[in-house]
């Protein structure tokens, strides 16, 4: 194994994935596109082009420039706008500083970053989260209630119609199949060591803080959020999918830092996910009157730190959820 390849394996890239990277997908590798250079030592040895790389996805959604200008296309475009600037285009339903694009890279077009086309062909579906078969529209409502810490737009509302139109437009040509490659976030290998807050903090400070700031608060310029807050009052609430360490680890492994997909080791991804999800954030809107009761009903699994004590804090012990009144549109 030569000196170039070794760091790849140290970073948890399996030989098979490596073969894929350098074989069929060779042009996808950043280093191949660059002239011969002396790379700074800080460049990750294995920064993949994008989250799609290890998903096996073959579907290519259409170019947004081809959204038609007709009546249907205008609604598709509204859906796309909501993805990128959620508070601006759906203010009455957004209770924090996040936008859809923060967890759906490329506005829901990117494989391995919970693409909307992958979700569109997977619903209706049974979800353990609410123990019933959910329509696609109901699934979208969950994003607003939990990830956006706001309130669910009514079924049939302009916002949900627009997001459905955009999802459908992205997915055209894709067979209905909930196992479509590229859906959701790709699996990250189990960590060798149990995820750890202290190691996660070190990863955060080295790899994340430049954008998301020292205390996870993100960064704002001229009143607009540039880097989203990862915890605290302006982030997703305890009911959001990203509050699951496993989910967060998958997202981070495939998508973070921007332009450096799969550059963290799986262990680093799990550790930093634990660190992020081991912080305080808005109450779960399904609050059952106490942290213990809420944990028992909704969080009793190893991927949720809600109701457990992390770094000396009993997470979720912040009382009843604040009711969301909505922003003015």
């Amino acid at each position, binding site marked *: 194994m030569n000196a170039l390849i070794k760091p790849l394996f140290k970073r948890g890239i399996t030989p098979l994935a490596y073969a894929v990277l350098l074989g069929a997908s060779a042009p*996808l590798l*950043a*280093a191949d*596109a*660059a*002239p011969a*250079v*002396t*790379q*700074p030592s*800080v*460049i*990750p040895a294995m*920064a*993949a*082009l*994008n989250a799609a790389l290890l998903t096996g996805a073959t579907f*290519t959604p259409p170019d*947004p*420039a081809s959204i038609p200008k007709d009546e249907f296309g205008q609604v598709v475009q509204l859906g796309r706008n909501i993805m990128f600037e959620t508070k601006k285009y759906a203010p009455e339903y957004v209770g924090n500083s996040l936008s859809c694009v923060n967890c759906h*890279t*490329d*506005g829901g*077009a*990117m494989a391995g970053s919970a693409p909307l086309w992958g979700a569109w062909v997977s619903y209706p579906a049974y979800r353990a989260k609410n123990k019933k078969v959910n329509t696609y529209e109901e699934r979208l409502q969950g994003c607003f209630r939990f990830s956006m810490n706001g309130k669910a737009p009514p079924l049939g509302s302009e916002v949900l119609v627009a997001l459905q139109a955009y999802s459908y437009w992205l997915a055209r040509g894709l067979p209905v199949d909930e196992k479509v490659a590229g859906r959701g976030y790709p699996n990250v290998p189990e960590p060798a060591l149990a995820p750890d807050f202290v190691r996660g903090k070190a990863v955060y400070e080295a*790899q994340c803080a*430049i*954008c998301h700031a020292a205390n996870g608060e993100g*960064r704002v*310029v*001229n*009143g*607009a959020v*540039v*880097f989203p807050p990862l915890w605290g009052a302006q982030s997703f609430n305890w009911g959001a999918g990203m509050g699951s360490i496993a989910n967060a680890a998958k997202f981070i492994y495939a998508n973070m*830092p*921007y*332009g*450096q*997909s799969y550059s963290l080791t799986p262990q680093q991804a799990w550790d930093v996910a634990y660190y992020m999800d081991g912080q305080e954030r808005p109450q779960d809107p399904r609050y059952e009157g106490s942290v213990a009761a809420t944990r028992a009903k909704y969080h009793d699994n190893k991927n949720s730190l809600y109701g457990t004590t992390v770094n000396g804090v009993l997470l979720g012990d912040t009382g009843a959820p604040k009711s969301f009144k909505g922003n003015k549109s």
Partner: protein
Amino acid sequence: MPRRLLRRPVAPPTEAASCAACHGAFGEGLPAENYPRLAGLPAQYIKAQLSYFADGTRKNAIMAGMAKPLSPAQITILADYYASLPVTMPAPAASVAPDFVARGQQLAEFGDWKAGIPACFRCHAAGGVGVPPYFPPIAGQSAKYLADQITAWQTGTRQGDPQGLMHSVASRMTAVDTQAVTAYLAALKPAAAVLGDTQPVLTGGVQ
């Protein structure tokens, strides 16, 4: 914007005299000679670049000579001074050739994720006005200066970008991408975006 309508909020330190020869009396830069604007850049970013020029992390013969003699205290003085100046454009930037508008705007606002290129504005903020302390403004710098930087990250003559982020992005950009996006960014007017919010232009006196 006529110079006589501007006034520096603070008097320039003596250290700034040699900077002003190329970067302008108001730190506005001189695009024709490829000298970038310094006014309004984050202090921490300026400090980092001066140290990179001095130690060769960022290779530039002129700036190496300028930066090497500076003490850490002098670097701080200069960085704070230029960071305090209102963003000033030397002249209206050239308009973008129509062929480039679409590609340049796409890369700036949305990126090209299939090619692994995140949007410029994802990290440099909407309008390219920058995000202190690490992400400098990119709007309104000359197209040639910006293109030179992308080339420098590709070839490794400029390093020190945090976590190699710009190296990753630049290494995926084609020559056409570079030409398009730098033309687009150069034509933006950061003064309008930034001055109105936080640093009103001071008028009424020469200097």
